[in-house]
């Protein structure tokens, strides 16, 4: 496969690269190093720019009014959009718009009217409530939040942990056990409005991502009607499987973007800084760190574009998406770590973005399925069904 960007992709890449360098980075320099939001006036001004570029709502499918961006181009742009301090978790501070959660695209028409379209218009935000104190890697086994049939609806009781954005969202997608005898086939997906009685955001969970917290949720006799069931009862995990696997690909691309930015900083610094009468770049130990960075970045880029290309062509891409997520999150972590080492003391300070990338990149090996689970997915595919 040829992964060189075509002319049109190259133009878009350069447009986004300029946007990051000329608009985002100068504003970011004035913010707290852990900030995740721009001043609202700056945000609004930059949204007008991304609209003028024809790239606003970049993840919204064409049939819902989004720009016609294929997944390979999306990956190339995601690599560019992540190349600033906040870029891993809030690429370009959200000025390219959001598309909402994958599952909500598979809602029925009434639910789309109430949730999807307001989300696409930027009027509503959502959270994704899967992980619980009992575990997130194996939700089918771990989910203890129960939804019981009552009064022509469902009553939810239980807790969710590490849920991002739940305190600021207007609604969320929550997975609950509706049939305890059926394991994976006993989980249902619900849409929960944040003002539903019995729904509580109990506390902030502070993590390495100190710019942007997670939360703990509690459901206490939280009643919802049948209209809040997303998809079919007991088929919660069937909703949007393909879209969710697809999401891993731009997720990997964000790690690559940050790795490239860290690597470029390390190269510049190695050429400037001298110790013991020689530039760092003349030291083989440092050269090899830079070479290893280059290899990690190229490897991740190759596998991520391969996954995107297979998805674009409609070929199976599950293994490829897992390999992309693994190589990008693990390789990206190594690159940032080496870049910090080359910068010495300065690499540890909040004066540079490296320390924030280091902390946030670490989360990437756990979020969206830990590395071990990705390896398990690949093992299952290559070893066949007798492992399942």
């Amino acid at each position, binding site marked *: 496969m040829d992964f060189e960007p075509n002319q049109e992709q190259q133009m878009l890449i350069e447009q986004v690269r300029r946007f990051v360098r000329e608009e985002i980075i100068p504003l970011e320099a004035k913010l*707290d*190093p*852990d*900030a995740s*939001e721009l001043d609202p006036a700056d945000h609004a001004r930059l949204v007008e720019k991304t609209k003028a570029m024809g790239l606003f709502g970049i993840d919204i499918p064409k049939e819902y009014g989004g720009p016609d961006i294929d997944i390979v181009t999306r990956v190339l742009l995601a690599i560019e959009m992540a190349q600033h301090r906040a870029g891993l978790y809030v690429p370009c501070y959200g000025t390219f718009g959001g598309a909402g959660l994958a599952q909500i695209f598979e809602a029925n028409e009434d639910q789309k009217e109430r949730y999807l379209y307001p989300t696409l218009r930027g009027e509503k935000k959502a959270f994704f409530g899967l992980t619980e104190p009992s575990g997130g890697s194996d939700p089918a086994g771990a989910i203890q939040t129960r939804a019981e049939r009552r009064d022509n609806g469902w009553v939810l009781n239980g807790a969710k942990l590490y849920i991002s*954005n*739940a*305190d*600021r969202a207007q609604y969320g997608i929550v997975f609950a056990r509706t049939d305890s005898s059926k394991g994976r086939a006993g989980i249902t997906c619900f849409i929960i409005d*944040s003002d539903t009685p019995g729904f*509580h*955001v*109990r*506390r*902030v969970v*502070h993590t390495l991502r*100190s*710019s*942007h*917290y997670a*939360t*703990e949720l509690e459901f206490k006799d939280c009643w919802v009607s049948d209209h809040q069931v997303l998809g079919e009862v007991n088929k919660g995990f069937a909703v949007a499987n393909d879209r969710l696997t697809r999401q891993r690909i731009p997720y990997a691309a964000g790690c690559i973007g940050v790795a490239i930015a860290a690597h470029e900083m390390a190269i510049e610094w190695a050429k400037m800084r001298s110790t013991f009468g020689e530039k760092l770049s003349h030291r083989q130990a440092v050269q090899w760190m830079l070479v290893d960075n280059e290899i990690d970045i190229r490897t991740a880029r190759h596998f991520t574009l391969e996954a995107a290309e297979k998805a674009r062509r409609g070929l199976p891409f599950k293994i490829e998406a897992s390999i992309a997520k693994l190589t990008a999150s693990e390789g990206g972590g190594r690159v940032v770590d080496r870049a910090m080492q080359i910068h010495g003391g300065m690499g540890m300070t*909040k004066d540079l973005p490296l320390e924030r990338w280091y902390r946030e990149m670490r989360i990437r090996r756990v979020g969206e399925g830990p590395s071990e689970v990705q390896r398990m997915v690949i093992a299952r595919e290559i070893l066949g069904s007798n492992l399942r």
Partner: protein
Amino acid sequence: MALRLRLEKPWQPLTAESVQRLPGQLGVYQVADAKGAVLFIGQAGARSPFGLRSELQREHRERGDGCQFRVEVNQQYRTRWFELLMVHKADHGGLPPDNAKNPPPLGRLSPY
């Protein structure tokens, strides 16, 4: 085990001497009136030259004597600041008066 949600340390008088002794670290703080009603919840972020010390020295310069304060050293000053503001809002029905003048975007919490 969850961390403590609310700042519950004893108040100290906001004076030039007491703030001079503060660490130059990142963290969060509260300023209260003489009766202990919280007036402001602040953060000492990475751009404060001497962290909590600089922020509380500024508070003292602007407010003069007669107020009280308490601090918490915290590397996650930003998310902890949001948390303290949300907890205050849930407990008291609104933000402290000096935060309400320029409120940051906040979520909604129903704390334990």
